[in-house]
C-alpha cells in the first residue's frame, strides 16, 4: 500500500515555504497598525464606523494571526474547516437563542421582568447623573 510509507514519513511538517523573522515582524507591524485603527475608530463618533473599525478589524486581526502566526494558511485544509465548523456552532447557538434572549417581546409574549430591570437601571443612572451634577 502506498499509505504504508506515506503514513510514517518522518518529516514534512508544513507544505508551504518557511519565512524569516523579518516576515513575522512585518505581520506584527500590520497588526499594530490595525490596533491603532480600532482604537481611533470610535473617535470619529459614527456608530456604524465604530462597528466596522472595532469588530471588522478584530476579525481581520484574528484571521492574520491564525493565518500567518498559527500557519493555518499552509496547514492541511481540514483543520480550517474544523475550526470554521466550530465557529458555525457558535453562530447556530446565537441564532437559535436570539429569538428568546436577544428580544424582550415577541409573538404573544413579553418579558416583563427584564423590561422592569431596564426601567430600574435607567432610573438609577438618572439618579447617579443628578448626584454627579450636585458635586
Amino acid at each position, binding site marked *: 500500500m502506498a499509505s504504508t510509507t506515506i503514513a510514517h514519513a518522518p518529516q514534512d*511538517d508544513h507544505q508551504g515555504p518557511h519565512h524569516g523573522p523579518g516576515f513575522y515582524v512585518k505581520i506584527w507591524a500590520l497588526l499594530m497598525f490595525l490596533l491603532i485603527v*480600532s482604537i481611533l475608530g470610535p473617535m470619529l463618533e459614527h456608530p456604524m464606523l*465604530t462597528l466596522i473599525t*472595532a469588530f471588522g478589524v478584530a476579525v481581520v486581526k484574528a484571521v492574520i494571526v491564525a493565518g500567518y*502566526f498559527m500557519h493555518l494558511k499552509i496547514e*492541511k485544509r481540514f483543520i480550517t474547516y474544523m475550526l470554521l*465548523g466550530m465557529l458555525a456552532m*457558535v453562530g447556530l447557538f446565537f441564532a437559535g437563542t436570539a429569538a428568546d434572549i436577544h428580544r424582550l417581546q415577541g409573538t404573544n409574549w413579553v418579558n416583563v421582568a427584564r423590561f422592569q430591570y431596564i426601567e430600574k437601571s435607567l432610573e438609577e443612572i438618572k439618579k447617579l447623573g443628578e448626584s454627579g451634577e450636585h458635586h
Partner: protein
Amino acid sequence: MATYAQPIATRRRASGIPTGRLAMWWLLGSEIVIFGGLLMCYLLFRHSYDHWHVAASHTNTVFGAVNTFVLLTSSLLVVLAHQAAESKQGGKAFIYLWLTIGGGLTFLMIKSVEWTMEISKGYTLPSNLFWSFYYTAAGIHASHVIAGMVAMAIVSFDVLKGRNLQRVELVGLYWHFVDIVWIFLFPLLYIAK
C-alpha cells in the same frame, strides 16, 4: 510506576499532521465553542440593554489597548521561538519562550492594576450584569493566559536541552489562540461603548 515509553501510535501520522499538533487543533476547536458560547451570551444581552454603555464607559480603553499590544507582541515572540526551534536552536527558542512568558506576566500585572482600580471604584463582579460578564470573560481568559505560561515554562527546560522541540509550536498555537480571544474581548468590552 513503570517508566513511560511512548507508544508507536503516537508516532504514526496517517492524517499527514503530527499527532501533537492535530490534538492541539482539536483542543482549540473545543475552546472556540467555550469562549464562543460565553461571548454569545454577552452579545445577546448587550443588544437588548442599551443602558449598558453607561457601565461600559467606565472600562479603561488605555489599559485594554496596552494589553492588546502586549499580547500581540508576545504572539510575535512565540512565533519566533517556534522558528528557532524548527532550525534546532534550542537556546534561542528558550529565550524567546521566556520573553513570551514575560509578556504574559506583563499582561496579568496590567490586568490586576486595572481590576484593582475598578474594584476600588465599586464595580465588582455582582454589582451589575455588565460587570459580571466583564469579570467572567476576562477572568476565564486570564486563567488561559496562566495555563499557557505554565505550559511554556515546562516546555522551555526540555527545549533548552534540545529535546521535544516540536512542543514549542504546540504551546505557540495555544498562545496565539489566547491572543485571538483577547482580540475579540478588546472591542467587546472596551471599545463598543
